[in-house]
């Protein structure tokens, strides 16, 4: 804005200088002492149709030694009297934001659900509360990173290989470790603490191999979003959500319908009886570990794709995973899905009302409330007494 008149005075009112803005609308005053100054814009010198936003034409910046200090008078077209100030352009309304957050909730919820499914499978069949599950999620993400950035493979084949390798590692884990412990008759509580040990062990192996920084995959980083209705999302999000949903549904149905799926549930209920029915318990558990490892890895890759990779990424969402599993009802695949979606949605949508730094509080509060109303989880069943 050219030609606006500005006067600068010290705090106590002694005039320092008066200037007029140049063609770019900028101006400059040299002051020789640090301190508070008062800058006043002569409203009369403004063009007829504009006014200072916020109304006041006085600014009181503090100038520090050796620094300069800038003041700004934002102008806006003068509204006709009696007419409401026009809504500011570019911002989004409550409902678009709600829509966006719902989408984000689903996005996050599905990733949690995938991770939760792996946890739920393993918990369901072996009774192991696996605190190292977060690390299995991380493992998948880092494996994909290693194939992707390390060997220069494109992310898609890298991810496929990572999932397969993680499945294999899941198998080996049971074969060489958890299975052996079961054979020794190690109790579930001891196993739970052992899993904490495993979690610590793996996490710091990752730290050494991978470093403490955030990393991203070589492809699909900062993919620009596209607008779809009220939401804007990157194409990778849609693909990822599609994959997540299909895996969840396929595994869920497989558990309910296939023979191995039913066997897995039978083993979960009563391993000795399962063995007496002719089910090879160890084999079933190994299949579950393989699947659990692979699914956790996929969850990690999706998380890494949507966010970034870090050696604690799995640990950081472990609580949400547990919340999802529990909320849905322990040991049911669809329960994990429903529970996780609720967790994801509440985390995101609650930020409409609570400060984002407290967004987990909202989700956790909902968790508590749901469990008070339905102590057995959303899809869980009450056991009979007597």
């Amino acid at each position, binding site marked *: 804005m050219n030609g606006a008149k500005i006067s600068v005075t010290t705090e106590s009112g002694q005039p320092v200088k008066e200037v007029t803005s140049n063609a770019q609308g900028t101006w400059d005053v040299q002051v020789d002492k640090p301190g508070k100054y008062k800058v006043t814009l002569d409203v009369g010198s403004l063009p007829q149709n504009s006014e200072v936003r916020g109304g006041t034409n006085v600014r009181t910046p503090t100038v520090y030694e050796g620094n300069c200090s800038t003041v700004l008078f934002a102008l806006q077209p003068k509204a006709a009297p009696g007419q409401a100030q026009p809504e500011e352009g570019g911002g989004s309304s409550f409902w678009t934001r709600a829509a966006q957050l719902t989408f984000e909730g689903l996005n996050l919820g599905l990733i949690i659900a995938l991770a939760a499914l792996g946890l739920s499978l393993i918990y369901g069949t072996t009774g192991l509360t696996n605190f190292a599950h977060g690390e299995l999620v991380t493992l998948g993400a880092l494996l994909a990173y290693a194939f992707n950035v390390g060997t220069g493979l494109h992310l898609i084949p890298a991810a496929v290989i990572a999932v397969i390798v993680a499945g294999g590692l899941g198998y080996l884990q049971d074969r060489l470790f958890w299975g052996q412990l079961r054979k020794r008759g190690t109790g579930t509580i001891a196993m739970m603490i052992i899993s904490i040990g495993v979690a610590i062990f793996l996490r710091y192996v990752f730290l050494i191999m991978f470093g403490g920084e955030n990393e991203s995959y070589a492809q699909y980083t900062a993919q620009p979003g596209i607008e779809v209705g009220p939401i804007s999302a990157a194409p990778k999000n849609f693909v990822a959500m599609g994959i997540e949903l299909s895996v969840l549904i396929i595994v869920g149905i497989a558990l309910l319908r296939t023979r191995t799926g*039913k066997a897995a549930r*039978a083993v979960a209920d009563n391993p*000795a*009886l*399962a063995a*007496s*029915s002719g*089910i090879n318990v160890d084999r079933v558990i190994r299949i579950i570990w393989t699947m659990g490892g692979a699914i956790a890895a996929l969850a990690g890759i999706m998380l890494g794709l949507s966010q970034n990779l870090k050696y604690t990424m799995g640990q950081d969402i472990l609580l949400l995973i547990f919340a999802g599993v529990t909320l849905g009802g322990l*040991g049911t695949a669809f329960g994990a899905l429903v529970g996780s979606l609720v967790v994801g949605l509440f985390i995101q949508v609650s930020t409409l009302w609570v400060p984002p730094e407290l967004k987990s509080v909202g989700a956790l509060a909902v968790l508590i409330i749901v469990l008070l109303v339905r102590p057995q989880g959303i899809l869980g069943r009450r056991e009979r007494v007597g």
Partner: protein
Amino acid sequence: MNAGPESQQAVTDRSEHLEGAEGAVLRCDELIAGYLPGVNILNGSDLYVKEGELIGIIGPNGAGKSTLLKAMFGLVNIRSGTVLLKGENITNMKAHSLVSRGVGYVPQTNNVFPSLTIEENLEMGAFQVPGKFKERFEFVAELFPALKERRKQRAGSLSGGERQMVAMARALMTEPSVLLLDEPSAGLSPKLQDLVFIQAQQINKAGVTVIMVEQNARRCLQICHRGYVLDQGRNAYTGTGRQLANDPKVIELYLGTLAKA
């Protein structure tokens, strides 16, 4: 246990065992087994069963009857002794491998999958022969009509007796050649108890070798060919069902007189 040497009909030493066990389908020799380190529950018990026989095992609570069945079936670790199935050494073999060798087992407690429906429970019974499920399901549904009506109900919500039916039915889903039953009649109504004993006999008539643990001891001894009385992990008495049922010592110590009255 002071195994009464004065008892004539019922035998207490190993000679009968060693004689009779020749050519048995299933035989155990001097089994020593237990749950906790250092505590043996079975203290060298012997048992054999011949092709097509129906064997009853009775004894006081905590004698080790269930443990004996579990040990044979690979669910309790055998510390010493051997189990032979048709000449093959199956000591400490895993339960599921025994199932594929034609052995079936109904546990005494925890004998259903609570979170599976009745139908799924039975499906698990037929796990190794999924093709036969339909046909066998019709068969057991006939026996226990209550189960058919409730096929979609989760076993965890069933009454004690209903569970027992499921457990029995589950074992009947496969057609085992040797069947181990641990108190199959417990908790069932008199009508169904009858049915269970009749079934056991029928199955046995059809050529299945049956070993049955029962606290319904008198009934058990009535139908079985031979019986064992187990006490403190050892064989206290053995003999034919009738011998045992009429042995005064056995009556006094194990059978009681209530049912006779």
